[in-house]
């Protein structure tokens, strides 16, 4: 790719899109200004990104996984899995794909990438990574991270993550993402140089905002509620599904015992022998068929898991909104307080309690010069504050607008994906039923020849 991606820093600044409302807007008008129907077609940074690098037609795949040993930060030996990422560009003319890049990454680097995206695109529902540790396992499934089945499912999950990012209209243009795919060495340093960790909102700050915010956008309140419920219901679903898989496994496997006993029994029978023996064989087939069936079902579980983790991404966007909104509310509050103070000083009336006022009463009036100085300072601060409020107001509205646009996009994606998942689940069940009918019909045939 020849064209350089825009500096991710620039992407953070909102483009001036609409005129502000009047400067000393009260608290009320800052909130809930929805821009219904004004959904942007392209990325939020529309005007600046005309000659972005764009992924013309790129195919990304995580094609292999390999066990490696190395030394970790504490110089201790560790074993980890590395994944091969291959990027192919598809030429328009003949549809042929050419391998342009291939490099190895480990899970922790994916995490780093995602954390970076979370900080720099707080208004985007950032695609989740596959789970770090195997959860919702049923007894046969291994909880070991090194287990080949787990590694395989993780490989698919990581590929899915990259594809999601690459197909997102905004995220796909990110330079760090591009480098992740193309620059093997030094990538970690490059990411860290962006200083994104410092820009991240502290957990404490976020928590504080969540509790103290007075007027968040109603839609975000609903969304947060929805994502909580979604997380809870999908967790429940995955837990029960794992138990169901366990039980189903038991049912099928016990039938294998029929195979053995029919065989033993057939040895003492004359006419019945053949029928019993061959029926027993079908029972063995039945018993062993469950392994493949349940392996397929794991894919369904993985699809559900992705949306379980997406719920967390949704919540992250809501949290950011709460932070922004709280910031705005605090700034407005401060401004209002200063204005009031200024007014009181100017008119000499004391309406609210202030330490200055108290001390003045106790220790005597300040000189008119002192008062003038203070008023002047306050007026400066007020002017500054109003500017800040303006931009925070704008920021807040921008955020709401852009975030909601991405949320709508996400909703459609979710509905589509989950429907597809349900369809493929139904297809799996149908296939399982057909296999069952086949086996038992064969067994019945054998019994009829007894």
């Amino acid at each position: 790719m020849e064209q350089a991606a825009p500096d991710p820093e620039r992407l953070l600044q909102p483009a001036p899109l609409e005129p502000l409302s009047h400067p000393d807007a009260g608290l009320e008008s800052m909130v809930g200004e929805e821009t219904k129907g004004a959904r942007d077609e392209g990325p939020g940074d529309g005007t600046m990104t005309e000659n972005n690098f764009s992924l013309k037609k790129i195919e990304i795949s995580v094609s292999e996984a390999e066990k490696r040993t190395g030394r970790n930060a504490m110089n201790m030996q560790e074993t980890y899995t590395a994944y091969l990422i291959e990027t192919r560009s598809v030429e328009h003319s003949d549809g042929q794909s050419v391998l342009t890049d291939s490099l190895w990454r480990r899970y922790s680097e994916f995490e780093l990438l995602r954390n970076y995206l979370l900080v720099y695109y707080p208004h985007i529902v950032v695609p989740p990574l596959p789970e770090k540790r195997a959860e919702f396992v049923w007894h046969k499934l291994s909880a070991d991270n090194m287990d080949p089945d787990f590694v395989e499912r993780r490989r698919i999950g990581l590929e899915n993550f990259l594809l999601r990012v690459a197909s997102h209209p905004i995220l796909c243009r990110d330079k760090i993402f591009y480098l992740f795919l193309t620059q093997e060495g030094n990538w970690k340093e490059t990411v860290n140089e962006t200083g994104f960790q410092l820009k991240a909102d502290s957990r404490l700050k976020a928590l504080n905002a969540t509790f103290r915010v007075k007027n968040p956008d109603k839609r975000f309140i609903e969304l947060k509620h929805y994502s909580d419920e979604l997380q809870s219901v999908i967790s429940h679903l995955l837990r029960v599904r794992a138990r169901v898989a366990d039980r189903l496994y038991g049912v099928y496997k016990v039938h294998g015992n029929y195979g053995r006993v029919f065989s033993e029994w057939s040895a003492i029978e004359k006419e019945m022998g053949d029928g019993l023996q061959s029926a027993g064989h079908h029972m063995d087939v039945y018993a062993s068929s469950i392994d493949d069936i349940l392996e397929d079902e794991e894919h369904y579980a993985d699809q559900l898991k992705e949306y379980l983790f997406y719920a967390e991404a949704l919540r992250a966007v809501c949290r950011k909104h709460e932070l922004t909104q709280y910031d705005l509310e605090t700034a407005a509050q401060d401004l209002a307080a200063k204005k009031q103070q200024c007014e009181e000083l100017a008119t000499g009336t004391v309406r609210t309690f202030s330490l200055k006022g108290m001390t003045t009463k106790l220790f005597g009036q300040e000189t008119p010069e002192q008062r003038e100085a203070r008023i002047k300072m306050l007026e400066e601060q007020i002017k500054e504050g109003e500017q800040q409020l303006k931009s925070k107001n704008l920021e807040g509205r921008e955020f709401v607008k852009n975030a909601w646009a991405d949320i709508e996009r996400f909703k459609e994606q979710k509905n589509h994906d989950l429907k597809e998942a349900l369809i493929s689940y139904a297809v799996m069940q149908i296939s399982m039923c057909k296999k069952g009918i086949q086996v038992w019909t064969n067994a019945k045939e054998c019994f009829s020849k007894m």
Partner: protein
Amino acid sequence: MSGGPPKALPSTGPQSLRDMPHPLAGSSSEEAVGGDSTPSPDLLTARSFGDKDLILPNGGTPAGTASPASSSSLLNRLQLDDDMDGETRDLFVTVDDPKKHVCTMETYITYRITTKSTRVEFDLPEYSVRRRYQDFDWLRNKLEESQPTHLIPPLPEKFVVKGVVDRFSEEFVETRRKALDKFLKRITDHPVLSFNEHFNVFLTAKDLNAHKKQGMALLTRVGESVKHVAGGYKLRNRPLEFAAIGEYLDTFALKLGTIDRIAQRIIKEEIEYLVELREYGPVYSTWSALEAELAEPLEGVSACIGNCSTALEELTDDMTEDFLPVLREYILYSDSMKSVLKKRDQVQAEYEAKLEAVALRKEERPKVPADVEKCQDRMECFNADLKADMERWQNNKRQDFRQLLMGMADKNIQYYEKCLMAWESIIPLLQEKQEAK
């Protein structure tokens, strides 16, 4: 031979028309005998086991490769049976219509026994009486006493642990009824037992209790003598065939026991699977309440899983009610056969001992005394009866298990078919594009 049993020894030929559908079974799909009785797909939806049976090949002729379903081969086999046996069916017995009786002292169930016969032993062509379990028990004991050289079919278990099983539940009563029906049909098919006078009384007497009190001593002479066989003789040479039967029964009972345990385990696992399914389905419903466009598909999946759960419940119920009891019955059957074999051994042992005693007496012309001859008689009768019954039993066993296992396969097929239907019907719902709300 000094005086054999009142009737001619039964032919060693196997079943002829034993499994013809009961002409009075009353089902609309009942075909005339020898007609197109292809096996119905739901073999076990018939009320009792014997009802819709195919006319199955007897043990003598090879089953061949012709499938039982082809009606012409059916006809061929029928004719073969006819030739071999020369008898036509002249006795039909059915057990049905269970009713609960509540008396001051106790509550119990009676069953209606319907008998139709052209035999001379029956005064009327048709009888209908009511009997309860203890009457069957009485009958079986009498048969064992009076026909000790024959295999008497088993009864379903007498005692039921109160509190664990509900003696008056529909399922229990129905399972028992089927077993009692089977019991009587097996006796009906037996060329010797079916002529037993106790059996006749059971089928015909208005007041069975009066007869019970009379204590009819209707033992056959052989029966009488066998009854008094002293135990404690050691057997020298068990004839090979009886040794083989004994070994066979041992292994057979073992295998059946294993199958019983496996079947129970499967049912247990299926029930546990069902419990989880019953929690699984509703979670989709809960989810559906959170969603807009996905609401219908999710609700559909929930309903689908519910249907599968119901189908599974039906499967486990059927297996519990139809499969396990028949299996257990056969285990009881082989137990009672073992005891008959033991008795036979005793009879032989006594004979051998007496024979030896005579030989030891060192007479110039050892004349076999009368009582040794009687022993020999006894033994030979016993052997003949037992052999005949064993062959008959082997045949019946084959047919019974064929039917039982095919039934098990059928039930599983039906279960999967129900589930298949549920999932297939939901696909269009899932694929449907939602109209913009």
